[in-house]
């Protein structure tokens, strides 16, 4: 057996180093775990400061011992390469592991173990954990807002119908495929509008009228984002074309429009739509505040969409334009059949980001008094029967938004892969 050099572990005494290192790491993790889960300190005989730092020191030394290059053990090499390249990395690794171990018990007990979900009143929540009863009781309001309970089937049916109609594009038939763009850009929005107008808002065909003030919750989030998404895309496309146009008037108007909307915060735009816009309408003309909000957000996001699409248009090589022109195509024919399909393909990630921003901006409609899910949370939070559960509400909404946004970004990533063509 060779002499052990603890400063420089080498491959010849690999077993000794390995056992020693793993033992030290095990001790350090055990110390932290015991501290976190059972609140005991096995090193309490040491001075406070040393006892606090001991796991980190032991762990670092342990990781130092097992840092042996080309050890021939596959897992060890993998470990060293990924989390244990040098002393600094080893300390960071340990800190992250310790942080996870330390925060796990508090998180678990708040989220699951001490949490309550049974019962129907606040009294059921006696534990120290989260009160999911609150979410359970208010779930209906968080989803449908103040929409009357017995009429909620109307929202459900229209949403199911909208989703079903959106999947028409998957029907594989070459003959119909030509008209798909037309369908999604013109026919589908019209159908959606009619569905939502007559089914959710009612007032015809024997359905009871429900004013938009009663709409709310997650369904309102969907309605607002859905319509804004549908409207802002074509407007943004025209603005992008306008900004790239040869005609000075069109170009300057587009530039002015885009820069104006991009320069102001959405909240002031909503203020404008709620307090200033009515002043600009004819006297006896009434426009519902939901419609005003949707118009405002659509115009606002259209400016961002326009900039994204402009990026795609600029990225196309000139040859594409020249080739289309040499085939005798006019401006519109060239853009619809040659330029836009390629440009839009390029900017899928950018468009998806803009749409994500749109969904994340919908809570701002609280400014005009419309309460989507975050607004409903704030309302429920001030209910005297359910005071003190703000945390649960926000965590719930954060999870929902996270799922929506994360799903959207993953979907856009897939689209990007699907439509990627090498050039």
């Amino acid at each position, binding site marked *: 057996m060779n002499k052990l050099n603890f400063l420089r572990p080498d491959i010849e005494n690999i077993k000794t180093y390995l056992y020693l290192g793993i033992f030290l790491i095990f001790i350090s993790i055990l110390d932290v775990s015991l501290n976190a889960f059972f609140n005991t300190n096995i090193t309490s005989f040491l001075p406070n400061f040393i006892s606090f730092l001991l796991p980190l020191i032991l762990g670092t030394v342990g990781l130092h011992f097992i840092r042996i290059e080309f050890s021939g053990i596959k897992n060890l090499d993998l470990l060293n390469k990924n989390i244990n390249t040098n002393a600094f990395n080893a300390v*960071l*690794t340990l800190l992250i*592991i310790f942080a996870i171990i330390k925060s796990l018990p508090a998180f678990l007990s708040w989220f699951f173990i001490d949490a309550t979900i049974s019962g129907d009143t606040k009294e059921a929540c006696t534990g120290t954990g989260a009160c999911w009863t609150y979410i359970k009781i208010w779930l209906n309001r968080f989803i449908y807002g103040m929409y009357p309970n017995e009429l909620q089937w109307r929202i459900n049916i229209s949403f199911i119908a909208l989703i079903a109609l959106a999947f028409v594009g998957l029907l594989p038939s070459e003959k119909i495929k030509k008209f798909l763009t037309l369908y999604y850009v013109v026919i589908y929005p019209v159908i959606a509008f009619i569905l939502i107008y007559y089914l959710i808002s009612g007032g015809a065909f024997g359905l009871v009228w429900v004013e938009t003030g009663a709409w709310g919750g997650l369904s309102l989030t969907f309605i607002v984002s859905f319509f804004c998404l549908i409207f802002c895309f074509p407007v943004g496309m025209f603005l992008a074309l306008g900004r790239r146009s040869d005609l000075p008037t069109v170009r300057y*108007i587009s530039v002015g429009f885009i820069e104006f909307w991009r320069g102001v*915060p959405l909240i002031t*735009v909503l203020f404008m739509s709620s307090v200033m816009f009515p002043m*600009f309408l004819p006297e006896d003309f009434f426009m519902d505040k939901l419609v005003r909000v949707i118009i405002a957000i659509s115009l606002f996001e259209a400016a961002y969409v326009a900039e994204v699409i402009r990026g795609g248009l600029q990225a196309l090589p000139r040859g594409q334009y020249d080739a289309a022109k040499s085939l005798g195509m006019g401006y519109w024919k060239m853009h619809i059949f040659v330029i836009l399909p390629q440009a839009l393909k390029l900017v899928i990630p950018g468009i998806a980001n803009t749409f994500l921003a749109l969904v994340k901006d919908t809570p701002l409609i609280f400014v005009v008094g419309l309460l989507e899910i975050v607004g409903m*949370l704030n309302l429920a939070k001030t209910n005297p029967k359910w005071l003190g559960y*703000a945390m649960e509400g926000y965590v719930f909404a954060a999870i929902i938004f996270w799922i929506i946004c994360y799903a959207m970004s993953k979907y856009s990533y897939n689209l990007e892969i699907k439509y990627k063509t090498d050039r």
Partner: protein
Amino acid sequence: MNFKLNKIIPQLVTLLAVILVFGFLTYNAQVNMDNRGIEFGFGFLSQESSFDVQFSLIDYDGSHSYARAYLVGLLNTLLVAFIGIILSTILGIIVGIARLSPNYLIERTAAFYVEFFRNVPLLLQIFFWYFAALRALPLPQDTEPMFGVFFLTIKGLFVPRFVWENLDIFFYSIIAAIISIIVIRNYARKLQENEGKQLPVFSISVGLFIILPLLTFLIGGVSLNFSVPVLEQMSNTSFKYKGGLGIPPELIALTLALGLYTATFIAECVRAGIQGISKGQKEAAASIGLTPRQILKLVVMPQALRIIIPPTTNQYLNLTKNSSLAAAIAYPDLVLIFAGTALMQTGRAIEIVSITMFTYLSISLSISVLMNWYNKKIAIKEK
């Protein structure tokens, strides 16, 4: 002829449409205002505002004018933007570099942070910090001080305040330090170009920056004291801090949320910038004998910054615009004071909303003009 008409007619139609829409709106506004007996004008700005603001950087109370209230709001907005930008830049750079770390755990932690915080609406995050996290803090009388001088309570963060004597001399010394650093840098560059000698510019700069202000303490008569917050009992149940500097919880929640949210985007910019430098650049630099430090300083950073800075400025702009969400938690920023309270009191919707929008617009446009100038300056000049 036909060709020219083709160009003129669409332009005329667009122009006409825009003029018609604007004319229609203006006409309606005129009619509406006549009916309600309102005159368009900005005279109200000099009237007495008669409302108080909780938190203000300049001297303000109800007897001041609306114009002064506007200034208070604008300064509060800029304060939030300033702190938020510093916070998000520091955090963004750290997270951005962490995402490129060879350490799997660090990379995953950074990725988790980015994916989580940027997929949750900013407003929700602000509400979370303000209504849930900061509300869980203890009352002033139960607060244990951090490091003996910081008090983090439900009423806000109380920190020691600087009490300067002869602050102006200290200030001049910093300016003198900056000027001499610039002179030395220019001299060093010339020296290197002419004679090939290198001066340790960085250490000289740091030294100057520390020594000159320090000298003012020793011989310039400058002195710095701290006014530490002390808890005082006003009545049986009411406690208040005397001395020190109180930072309201609204400001903490807002800057924290804005910083954490924007940092995710800045982190992605930083990551993209560093990844955008091709390996060949580093190898070429190494092959002509530059040290790793020189490679980073002379080859990688200048190129990476060219990619990082434009989108990052965009994020700063977004942060400034997003700071208007302050209105949701009643932090007195421009939107809350001016487009909220002042509008309620005066009822002058058109003027006030236009001023507010114009303010944000001019901030945005001036920054984007600056950005365009910068982009042109650093753009690679190809032949």
